[in-house]
């Protein structure tokens, strides 16, 4: 052991210590007593350590229960702060590892500011933590560990270390390893495992970003067919017209022979009536080419009135001839 450093006051040159002669003090060339061997610095350190040792959070009475699928109670093992679980516990997909212990800060039971179970994969340094549920009054803490809680990347590890982390402001904090767990991934649930891994990495998340530009090409305007086809069909319609007129005038002999008699009886009415009908068709032609609706309606009002008046007269005359049997 090293010689303790002497008190500085007494380590002065001899000639300056002349007042000590009057106080009957001897310079310390011999070994001082045991108490004064320690320095002020180490004294303060020891005091702090003893204070801290008085309120460090720890736990007692640890119990680990592995509940399997067909065996709800399961076997239980005990552990403590200095006696972790001896063997690695295998954790299958349906198993639940229940941990229970009582938290204490050396003197009283209670609940620290933070109480966590840390699950760590030493090879990849990935870790996850699970808060313990602690009762304030009794300090009893428990936590359940199963495959559904552990992230998928941790489940791939061979061995996961379990540690209890306790602490808070003011009091001492501790991290105690309590054992290890070997998760066994079910090969049948491999697809779900892969999906969980992808989800944890953030795949499948909705990311809002601008979409690709849309280049729309509108449909081309419809075009008329070649004029030849139109002409052919026009010829067909005109042929129909020609056929109609021939049928009327030659084959059936339309009532042209009635015309002189009709004109004789009521010339004004018949001419006005036929003229008004032709004028109406003329109005429609003007509407098609240049006029607007209001002009056509005005014209139709006038011509319609003319047609009505002359028509009634003309038809009255026709009826008279029909009743006479001449039609």
């Amino acid at each position, binding site marked *: 052991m090293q010689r303790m450093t002497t008190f500085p006051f007494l380590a002065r040159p001899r000639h300056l210590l002349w007042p000590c002669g009057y106080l009957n003090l001897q310079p310390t060339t011999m070994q001082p007593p045991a108490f004064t061997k320690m320095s002020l610095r180490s004294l303060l350190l020891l005091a702090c350590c003893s204070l801290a040792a008085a309120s460090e959070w720890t736990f007692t009475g640890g119990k680990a229960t592995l509940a399997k699928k067909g065996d709800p109670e399961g076997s239980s093992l005990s552990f403590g702060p200095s006696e972790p679980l001896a063997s690695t516990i295998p954790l299958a997909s349906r198993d639940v590892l229940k941990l229970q212990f009582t938290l204490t800060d050396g003197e009283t039971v209670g609940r620290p500011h933070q109480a966590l179970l840390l699950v760590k994969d030493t090879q990849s340094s990935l870790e996850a933590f699970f808060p313990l549920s602690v009762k304030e009054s009794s300090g009893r803490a428990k936590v359940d560990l199963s495959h559904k809680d552990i992230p998928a990347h941790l489940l791939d590890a061979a061995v996961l270390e379990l540690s209890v982390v306790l602490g808070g402001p003011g009091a001492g904090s501790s991290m105690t390893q309590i054992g290890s767990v070997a998760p066994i991934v079910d090969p049948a649930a491999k697809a779900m495992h892969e999906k969980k891994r992808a989800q944890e990495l953030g795949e499948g998340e909705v990311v809002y970003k601008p979409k690709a530009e849309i280049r729309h090409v509108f449909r081309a305007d419809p075009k008329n067919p070649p004029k030849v086809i139109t002409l052919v069909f026009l010829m067909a319609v005109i042929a129909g017209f020609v056929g109609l007129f021939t049928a009327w005038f030659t084959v059936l002999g339309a009532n042209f022979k009635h015309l002189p008699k009709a004109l004789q009886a009521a010339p004004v009415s018949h001419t006005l009536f036929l003229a008004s009908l032709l004028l109406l068709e003329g109005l429609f032609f003007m509407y098609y080419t240049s006029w607007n609706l209001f002009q056509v309606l005005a014209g139709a009002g006038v011509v319609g009135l003319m047609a009505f008046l002359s028509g009634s007269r003309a*038809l009255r005359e026709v009826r008279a001839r029909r009743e006479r049997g001449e039609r």
Partner: protein
Amino acid sequence: MSKSRPAASAGAASNSNNPLTILSALPARYLQTTPSRTKLIDAFLLFLIFTGAIQFLYCVLAGNYPFNAFLAGFTATVGQFVLTVSLRIQSNPENKSEFKAVSPERAFADYVFGSVLLHFFCINFIN
């Protein structure tokens, strides 16, 4: 067409119930018994059917662009056909008993009015 055939002449032929016999006798019978006015109307009806068929054939072959033109033309044909048929019914002397309140002249006046309206709407639609 509500024409009443006299029952007496039906029994003249030996196998009068045979459809083929009736069909072959139909044209001659038509030309004999139909009044001249009705035949004029029938010629116009045939013309209208022909024009409507031509328009439809054009639409099928050459596409229906512009569509409103096809509709206007086809509607004109069909509407005129309907009006002419109703004129034919009302002015046929054999149907006199059914149309006591409507004289043939009144039917003709209605026909003219309806045709004018139809033409107006078709011109409007053809744009």
